[in-house]
């Protein structure tokens, strides 16, 4: 089980990886969304704001009305943000649940695909 602090550290790294990736920034330049993440085992919530492809802020708690909600175990969230886990595989097995439009699900997966291609 990952703590809230561990997930926030993972999110900080994720923000750095995403924002410094020129290819990803180009691809997501028209993507502005508010995301909520929930650790299903801890019931911890996190908010991330993406503005034109740039992660501008993230924080603990569910703030504002989201465009996308991701439900996963705290361990999976942490591993996902560190790039140690292929979220597509977990999603296809129903272990990660996403509430969003198909386009946004695709965009979400594209981020991981670009910054951690393997």
């Amino acid at each position, binding site marked *: 089980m990952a703590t809230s602090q561990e997930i926030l*550290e*993972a999110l900080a*790294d994720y923000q750095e990886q995403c924002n410094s990736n020129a*290819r990803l920034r*180009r*691809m*997501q*330049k028209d*993507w502005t969304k*508010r995301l*909520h993440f929930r650790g299903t085992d801890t019931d911890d919530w996190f908010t991330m704001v993406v503005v034109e492809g740039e992660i501008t802020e993230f924080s603990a708690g*569910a703030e504002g*009305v*989201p*465009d*996308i*909600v991701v439900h996963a175990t705290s361990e999976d969230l*942490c*591993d996902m943000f*560190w*790039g*140690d886990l*292929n979220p*597509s*595989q977990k*999603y*296809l*097995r*129903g272990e990660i*649940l*996403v*509430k*969003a*439009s*198909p*386009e946004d*699900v*695709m*965009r979400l*997966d*594209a981020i991981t*695909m*670009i910054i951690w291609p*393997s």
Partner: protein
Amino acid sequence: MTQLRKAVGLPTVIATSSGLALATVSLTADVQIGLGMPGAAGWMAVLAAGLISVLASWCFAELVGMFPTAAGIKLFIEKAFGEKAALICATLYVGITVLIVGSESYVLAAVLHYAFPAVHQAWWVFGFLTLMALVNLRGISITGIAQDVATYGMVLAVGGLAAWALLRPGAPPIPTPFELGSGFGFAQAVALGVFLYLGFEWVTPLAEEVTDFRLIPKGMLWSLAILAFVYGALHIGMMTMVPKEQLAASAIPHVLFGEAALGRFGLVAMAAVSALASITSFNAGLLTASRFLYAMARDWAAPRFLTRLHPDWATPWAAILALYGLCSAMAVAVLTSGAFKLFIFLGAAIECMIFVVMALSVLRLRRTMPDLVREFRVPGGTLVPWVVAVLYSLLFVLVFVPDPAHPADHGAQLGALVTLGVVALAVVAYVQWVVPWLRKKAAPAGGQKRRRRPGG
């Protein structure tokens, strides 16, 4: 649970479900199902197929209530019968659905060529396929209000035209609307009638977007009712206004009906309905199939190049182009052979198959995961899933049984059976040998990967 900013409501669930099933080739198939029945009595087979589809929709609703994800059908089967079975069934289902595109584009091209003869049919086929591929490549999907307008517009146009043709002063009498004919003829008509509803269940991925999960089963129910009305009314209209022999020999019977009912205006109206029907169903179909292919590649179950994304639009361009190639090849095959009816039989069979698999999944998961929360439970214990499994198994067989009264269809039935067999064997071989090879190839890279998480 927090609500999404843009959540989907009931009208859009209904429109999406109906729009996916309402394709141009379905309008053609609407005639096909009535050929073995007297007069215009085929509407009863349309209705019967719709009614039993309600039972199948309940099975889908129970499964999607347990696993509300766009990964849908593959996931349901995987939870019930394991990954190999899931890969085989889902790939076969999506693959056959893609093959039907050849027939869809052929019929649409025939419609447009009939309305605008100056443009050759082949140009319409490739123009349509290319347009759809580009739209998908650009990431444009027909959703929300656009889907609502398109679907309800088609329903009103077809329903209105049929009502005008049948109810106006001096309208011809409906030929034998209540005479069932032979039991075999009716049963086979119901089996083919399943094709008319093909795709209504593709609405289940909307479980990720709805305000309330119960909108999915409710939406599917309304959608089936609307489809039954549209196909039933159109069937009666066509059988009343156009000689049966002429309808049977045509790829565009609905256009002949439009022309017979309202002249040039009716012809153009039905051509517009066809174009809209093809665009909505094909757009969603290509979107779903390309994402399915992409997801398989991400899961190392398909070649890795299929994960390639467009640098600006984040769309899986390699998967879209691969499907575009396959659809074009199918379109050429249908265009040169004219064998579009084969795909009606094939579509009906694959839909029956997937309903059987879904019903068996419900039964299996009731035993293996009895405590998992079910947002919707099929009423009547295990009776309904058993009825669905047995009934659709019988209908599956009936699709291929030759009707002595219609020797002209025997070739199409045999062709459908052979195609299904060949594709099924290819899919089984792929899952049995190619997927493990792809994953084995991927394993060393994954195994050597250093974890980035501190202390992980």
